[in-house]
Structures are given as structure tokens and as C-alpha cells.
């Protein structure tokens, strides 16, 4: 029992170790000043749903980014989620950072390591508590069920954020703060001023297919004695669009809670959800409603729960404009940077070169269509690999990077030139087609690598690239030219059901065996029958012979003796004819018992005496009758 418990604990420990092995954390520095910003990075591989920041009052989160990296190599996908948090210390001293939490798709939550951070005091911390912005002036709505006011520009965040630097692809598209008039909402929505309500905001009301835009939902709660609790959020589902929750990024760049004045009443506003949406289909796009259950609460009473739902909005999704479109294959939408490179620039025949083309910018990987590449014919190309990853910037935009690597082998020496590669895309924020062309890529092949076997490339352009498994099939050269015995036999009409000659040849040995064995059996049987017949006929023959004998001379006694001995030879005493009287006695005692021997032996002794000592006819008759009686007695007692 104890062993089982120990084994269980050991297995549990191993499983936890296995999970923890896929999560790595690091900090940019362990000693900082109060003016510095610390970066806390968490990398989690596998099926990770989200990464939650560390809960601590010693640090303010001034920025965050998440990056999902997926790579497909030979059909195998690997996924890594990297979350980075920019943390500003709120005080000096020895501070504890972490742990952060990693939520797996299975629902399980794992905790990361904690760090001890030393913060030296060099002045007021950057991450000091921000000031709430003043409420903005609002137009006066009607007393009851007022229309929604025109969205106003929210005050800029008081957080000391660094402005995002210009990237290789250019500036980020403009994106207004939460609830500002740079965003558009449904301005004819009517609501109950006494209850909380939700409004949807979009960054643009008319976009093209593939253009990212922001959809976010703001929660407005009247500020008065009755407090409201909101729960049971009903998440929206965007049809025919790719979307990503960027609420954390928007939180990082805007104040969480502000107060606004609508129709004389003050509302507390809060971001519920913010999504980056990329439409995949033209037409009318409906921003789906979102709903919350709200419940008023005071010290003494609680109101009945009610549903606060946002109204739905429509965004027009247009096709990518055809005017000035460079080619039909130009389908990428976003704002990108493109580059191409080849490595190494000099190698030997048989070495493998790699051509990398990469597109990086604002957009999603599915909307990035890499350009076609034409390689020189004397290169032997292998299957390309492709990888992509997306990063959520601190402003909320999603930056994507798609990289395709072509591997090829040079089969001849020389200087090779890959023509310039051009990438076209449509920039929806500037409403124009753009393109970027790489320089012609050159590389030199000089010398032959002796360790690599070169296979000439296919010269026929229409011949498809041979896949590796086909190369494992036999080519036919391994098979002998002779069609072989099996093929010849099969050619002569299968199946072959035999012929009379074959059946005869098959039966002949069997018949031979039967005949030979039968003959032996017959012979044995016949031999046994002859001996039996001799045995049975010996008695009557002896009796007939004895009764027929008449006395003539002394030789007559010899005839009596011979008849008896012949009888005995036929009846189980084979050597009776030449045996002495003692030998006869022993044989008779063995076969018939002592009494029979005692009855016969005196008669045989008398015969010998009479034959050599002289006797008359009367003695002959006496001995003859005695022998006849003995034979009759012997026959009766025999089986």
C-alpha cells in the first residue's frame, strides 16, 4: 500500500515537472531604479489559453504584449505563447515579483516562478497612481430615454507611456482612446438613464476585406447611491471574420475607469471587451450585441437582476479596390514591410542554400499572401517551410510576421541570380496599393562538396517534383528480364484442375503401397491357416493310422512309435520325431502336464523294448489300443 502511495506521488511529481518544463520566465534585470521599467517575459509552449499577469501592488503594469508563434514544418505544428509585461515599480526596496499564472486549454492553471527585484530609489516612480480624468462636457439629452450623446474624446491617459517607435513597415494606424469621438458608436440608441447600459464602438464604419479594425464595448453605469454589480458576460461571436481579444492591450494604453456626463447625469464608463476584427467577406457586417446581467445594490436592499445588452451596429465591408491593382495575385491587405535574402552567398556544388522571404507588418497571417519565387532551372528545389507568428502591440494592433524558406541545392558551378521579388499589398489606411521589391539575389557556387551525392534536376518543367516516398518504389531494373517459371505457369490459364495422367501418377504410389501391404497380409494369413489345419487334422490322422496298423514283425512296433511322434510334432511338440524319451517327458509335462506324460511314456518304453527284445502280436495289440486310448484322451483334453 505504501509503495502504491509513493508511486502515485512520484507520478504526480513527474507530471507537474513535465508541465513546468514547458514554461520559461525571465526578467530584464534583477536590480533597477524607480525610474526604470522592468520587462517580465513568460514563454509557454503547448496548449495554452492565456497568461495572467502577476498580482502585486509593488509594480504597475505599464505595457504588455502577447505573441503567439506557430510554425509548420513537414506538417507538424508547434505553438508557443510569449507574454511580456512592462512593469514600473511603485516604490523602492526589495520587492517580490510574481508569480504569474498560465491558464491551459484544459482549464488547469499553473504558476510561474517568483523573482526578488531590488529597486533603488532615484526619484518619483514612473508608475505612480494615475489621476482620473475630468468628465467631459456633454450635450443635454431629454429627461428620460435620452439619445446617446455624440462620443467625445476621452482625455489622454496620464500614464507615463513611451510612444511607440516607428517600425519598418511605418507608423501604426491612428486609433482613438476608449470611448473617444475618434471611434464611432450607434448614436441613435435610447436607454434608461437610471440603469447601466452598454455601447459598441468601432474604429471605422467602412473597411475593405482583410482590413483590421477595432470593435469594443463600453459599459456605462450611473453614478449615484445605488451601486451596480455586473456579471454573466455574454461574449460576442463575429461571423465571417477573424478576431482577437485585445482588451488587455487597450487597458494598458487607456485608463480603466472614467466618468462622463450624459444629459446631466454622471456615468462611470468602463471597457468591457475590445476586439481586433478582420473581415473575411464583403457585405454588411453586423457587430454582434453583448450582454451583462446587472444588479443594483445598496446597504439595505438589492434590486431584481436585469439584462443590459448593447445594440447591434453595421459596418460596411468592401472588396479590395481593383483600381491600380498590380496583379490578380496581389491580395494582401494591411501595412507591411518585405524583405528577401539568400544564405550562404558562396558554397560548393551539393551544398544547400536557403532563400528567405519575409513579410512583417500590421495584419493577420491568413491575409498575407507571399509572392511567387522563380528559381533557376539548374537548382534542385526541396519542399519549402513556412512559419508565422503574431504579436499584440501595446496599442492594440496585431503585428504578424510570415516567413517562407526555400531550400535548394546547386548542381552546377557558377554565379546564380535570383530575380527581384516584388510584394504588393493594399494599405487601407492610406487607400492605395503599395509594393516593395527586393534586390536581385546573387550567390556563387564554386567547387564540389565531395561528401554529397548530386542528383540532376528534372529538366522537364511540366514534370512534378518527385515526392520522397515514390523514390522508394522499385524502378524495374531490379527485376530480371526473364518472366520466370511462376509467370509461365500462370499464363497457361489458372486454375489447373489436373489431368488423367496426373491423377494416375498420383494414385500409382498409393496403389503400390496398398498392393504390397495387401500381399504381405494375405501371405501371413495363408501361413497361419495351414498350421492350424495341420494341427486339427493330426488327431484323426494318427487315429486312422494306428487303427490300420497290423502286426507283421518287430518293425510294426516302430510304425506305432512313428505315428505317435508325428502326432506330437503336429500338436505343439515340433521336435518330437527325433527326441529322446526324457526330452519327450519334459515337452509333454510343459504342454500337457505330468499325468499325460506318465500315461504315454511307459507305452513308448514298452514299444522300444518290444522292437529290440522280441514280442508277439498280442503285445502289439495291447500297445496299439493303449496308444489309441491316449490319443483320444489327448484330443479330448486339447482346446
Amino acid at each position, binding site marked *: 500500500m505504501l509503495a502504491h502511495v509513493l508511486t502515485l506521488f512520484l507520478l504526480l511529481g513527474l507530471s507537474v515537472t513535465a508541465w513546468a518544463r514547458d514554461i520559461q520566465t525571465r526578467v530584464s534585470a534583477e536590480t533597477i531604479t524607480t525610474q526604470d521599467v522592468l520587462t517580465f517575459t513568460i514563454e509557454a509552449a503547448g496548449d495554452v489559453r492565456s497568461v495572467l499577469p502577476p498580482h502585486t501592488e509593488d509594480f504597475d503594469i505599464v505595457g504588455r504584449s502577447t505573441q503567439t508563434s506557430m510554425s509548420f514544418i513537414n506538417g507538424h505544428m508547434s505553438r508557443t505563447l510569449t507574454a511580456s509585461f512592462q512593469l514600473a515599480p511603485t516604490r523602492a526596496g526589495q520587492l517580490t515579483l510574481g508569480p504569474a499564472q498560465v491558464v491551459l486549454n484544459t482549464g488547469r492553471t499553473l504558476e510561474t516562478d517568483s523573482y526578488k527585484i531590488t529597486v533603488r530609489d532615484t526619484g518619483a516612480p514612473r508608475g505612480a497612481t494615475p489621476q482620473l480624468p475630468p468628465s467631459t462636457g456633454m450635450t443635454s439629452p431629454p429627461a428620460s430615454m435620452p439619445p446617446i450623446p455624440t462620443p467625445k474624446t476621452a482625455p489622454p491617459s496620464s500614464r507615463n507611456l513611451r510612444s511607440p517607435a516607428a517600425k519598418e513597415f511605418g507608423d501604426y494606424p491612428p486609433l482613438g482612446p476608449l470611448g473617444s469621438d475618434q471611434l464611432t458608436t450607434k448614436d441613435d440608441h435610447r436607454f434608461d438613464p437610471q440603469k447601466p447600459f452598454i455601447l459598441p464602438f468601432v474604429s471605422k464604419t467602412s473597411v475593405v476585406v482583410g482590413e483590421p479594425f477595432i470593435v469594443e464595448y463600453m459599459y456605462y453605469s450611473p453614478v449615484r447611491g445605488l451601486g451596480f454589480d455586473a456579471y454573466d458576460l455574454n461574449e460576442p461571436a463575429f461571423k465571417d471574420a477573424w478576431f482577437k481579444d485585445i482588451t488587455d492591450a487597450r487597458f494598458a494604453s487607456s485608463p480603466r475607469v472614467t466618468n462622463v456626463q450624459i444629459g446631466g447625469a454622471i456615468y462611470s464608463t468602463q471597457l468591457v471587451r475590445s476586439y481586433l476584427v478582420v473581415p473575411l467577406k464583403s457585405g454588411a457586417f453586423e457587430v454582434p450585441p453583448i450582454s451583462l446581467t446587472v444588479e443594483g445594490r445598496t446597504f439595505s436592499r438589492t434590486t431584481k437582476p436585469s439584462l443590459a445588452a448593447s445594440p447591434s451596429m453595421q459596418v460596411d465591408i468592401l472588396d479590395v479596390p481593383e483600381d491600380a491593382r498590380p496583379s490578380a495575385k496581389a491580395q494582401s491587405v494591411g501595412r507591411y514591410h518585405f524583405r528577401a535574402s539568400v544564405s550562404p552567398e558562396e558554397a560548393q556544388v551539393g551544398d544547400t542554400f536557403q532563400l528567405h522571404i519575409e513579410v512583417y507588418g500590421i495584419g493577420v497571417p491568413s491575409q498575407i499572401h507571399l509572392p511567387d519565387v522563380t528559381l533557376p532551372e539548374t537548382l534542385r528545389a526541396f519542399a519549402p517551410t513556412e512559419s508565422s507568428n503574431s504579436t499584440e502591440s501595446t496599442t492594440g494592433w496585431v503585428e504578424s510576421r510570415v516567413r517562407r524558406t526555400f531550400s535548394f541545392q546547386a548542381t552546377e558551378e557558377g554565379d546564380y541570380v535570383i530575380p527581384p521579388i516584388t510584394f504588393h499589398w493594399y494599405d487601407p489606411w492610406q487607400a492605395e496599393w503599395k509594393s516593395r521589391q527586393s534586390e536581385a539575389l546573387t550567390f556563387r557556387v564554386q567547387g564540389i562538396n565531395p561528401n554529397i551525392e548530386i542528383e540532376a534536376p528534372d529538366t522537364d518543367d511540366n514534370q512534378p517534383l518527385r515526392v520522397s516516398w515514390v523514390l522508394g518504389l522499385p524502378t*524495374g531494373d531490379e527485376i530480371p*528480364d526473364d518472366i*520466370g517459371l511462376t509467370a*509461365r505457369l500462370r499464363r497457361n490459364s489458372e*486454375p*489447373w484442375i489436373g489431368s488423367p495422367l496426373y491423377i494416375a501418377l498420383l494414385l500409382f504410389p498409393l496403389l503400390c503401397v496398398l498392393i504390397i501391404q495387401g500381399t504381405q497380409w494375405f501371405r501371413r494369413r495363408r501361413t497361419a491357416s495351414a498350421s492350424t489345419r495341420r494341427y486339427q487334422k493330426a488327431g484323426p490322422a494318427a487315429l486312422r493310422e494306428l487303427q490300420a496298423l497290423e502286426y507283421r514283425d518287430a518293425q510294426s512296433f516302430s510304425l506305432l512309435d512313428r505315428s505317435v511322434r508325428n502326432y506330437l510334432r503336429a500338436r505343439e511338440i515340433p521336435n518330437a520325431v527325433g527326441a529322446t524319451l526324457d526330452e519327450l517327458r519334459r515337452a509333454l509335462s510343459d504342454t500337457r502336464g505330468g499325468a499325460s506324460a506318465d500315461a504315454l511314456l511307459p507305452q513308448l518304453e514298452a514299444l522300444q523294448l518290444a522292437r529290440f527284445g522280441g514280442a508277439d502280436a498280442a503285445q502289439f495289440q495291447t500297445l496299439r489300443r493303449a496308444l489309441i486310448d491316449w490319443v483320444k484322451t489327448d484330443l479330448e483334453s486339447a482346446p
Partner: protein
Amino acid sequence: MTAHKLPKSPLLFHLALLIGLLALSHAAYAADTPMATNAQQSAEQATPAYSGDDELWSAKVHVTRGREAAERGEIGLATLHLERARYLRPFDITIRQGLDLLRQQVQRQRMTTFHHARLTQGEAQGLWWWRLFHVLPTRMWAGIALFCLWAAFGFWLLGRRMTTSVTKDGLISASVISLLITLACLSCWTGAVRTSVRLEPGVVVQQNPQFFRAPDALAPAEKSSDLYEGGVVLIRGKDAQWMEIELVGQQRVWVAAHTVEPIAITPPSDSTR
């Protein structure tokens, strides 16, 4: 006449008889097959240039065509040609390895298409017996059985007259073993004849094959994960336009006649008959 006094002449007679019978059986066997085994003709047939329908019966040609079909992506046709090559050269390890490789690809493609596979590769049940008995041609089964029977007879003749000795035990044992092999070969021969008559395997050569519940073009066409390009099925009946086939689980369906090609090679004279 006792055993130890057996003169040599009957033994020699038996040996001569056995050799004569074997020679006679070989002559009869050769006369019944078109081999016409003389050295000159064998040398002529060993030339790589095939004539007439020799291409049909050449495993080399089928392997080459199978490879070409695989390169074109016609996996069903490639499977058919390699199955025929194995039918003609059953013990060629190169063909077997190529067929195994092709089968792996067929199953991989099947998994990609249907997300479903069977450990038995979805073949009809009777195919196992067909493959077992058709390792050799029926004539070869019969020939081996006849040879082993005569060998058993010879061993028995030699050993029966001997007095008890190691040689006699060895001869009698060899005789019994030969007799057992004879029985096994005879069983395989009858099995091969029976399966040839009752079972006709074929390979699905059409891409994305569909089946019908009735031999009618108006019947709805359906797809099944057990009917896939490169799969081996049993042909149960056919006419000019339709073919009834048996899939795994003894389910019988109808397909267009060009969907399935039989593995057994039909000479042109038979096919036009």
C-alpha cells in the same frame, strides 16, 4: 526369404522403377505446360525484349508501369501493377517492399481523405485465403505434391526391407514427412482451385471512387471509407457497365465497371471473348 538375405537386384529394380516413374511424371508435366523446357527456348525467352502478350506476364514491365503511375500520382494504378507483379513473382522481396511502401501511402491518403482507417486495411475477408493459396500457381502446388508423394514412396520402398537401423528410421521418417508435405500441397492446390473459382480480387483504380446501391446510373452515388483508390476488393459480378464488388464486412455494392481492375491477368484472347 528373410530380410537380411535380400538380394540387391530387387532393390535396384525398385530404384530404377522410381526413377523411371519420376522421369515419366516430369515428361507428362512438361507436356501439359507450355514451358517446352529445352535450353534453346529458355535462352530465347530470357531476352529482355518481350513479344506479343509477354509484356502482360512480365513482372518487370508491371513494376516499371507501377512506378510511372506512382510518379503521376495514380496510386490505384500503381497498386494494381505492383499487385500483378507480385502475382507473377511472388517471392521477389523488392516487389513486396515496394508494395508495402505503396500500401502505406494509400492508407495515409485514406486517413487524409476520410480520417478513418482499419487495421485490416479494409479488405474483404476472403482475400486472406486467396493470398495464401495463390502464393504459387496451381500447377506448382500440384507438381510439388506429386514430387513429394513419389519421394515418400521411394523412401518407404527403401526403408521397409531394412532391418532396424538408423538408416531405416531416417528413411521412414523422411517418408512420413514427405507424405505430410504432399497432403499440405494437395490441400493448397485444391484451395487455390477453389478460391480461383469463387474469389476474384481487384484493385480500385479510380480516384475518389463512388458506389451505388443498384446497377443504375440514377441510383444515388455514395462514398465510403472502405472504398478508396488503391484498395483491394472482391469482384462478385460484372457486365459491360457495372461491377458488383464486396467490401469489408461482406457489404456488396455496385461500381462503374472501369472503377476496379482485376489483379489476375486476363490474356487478350480471354478478355475479348
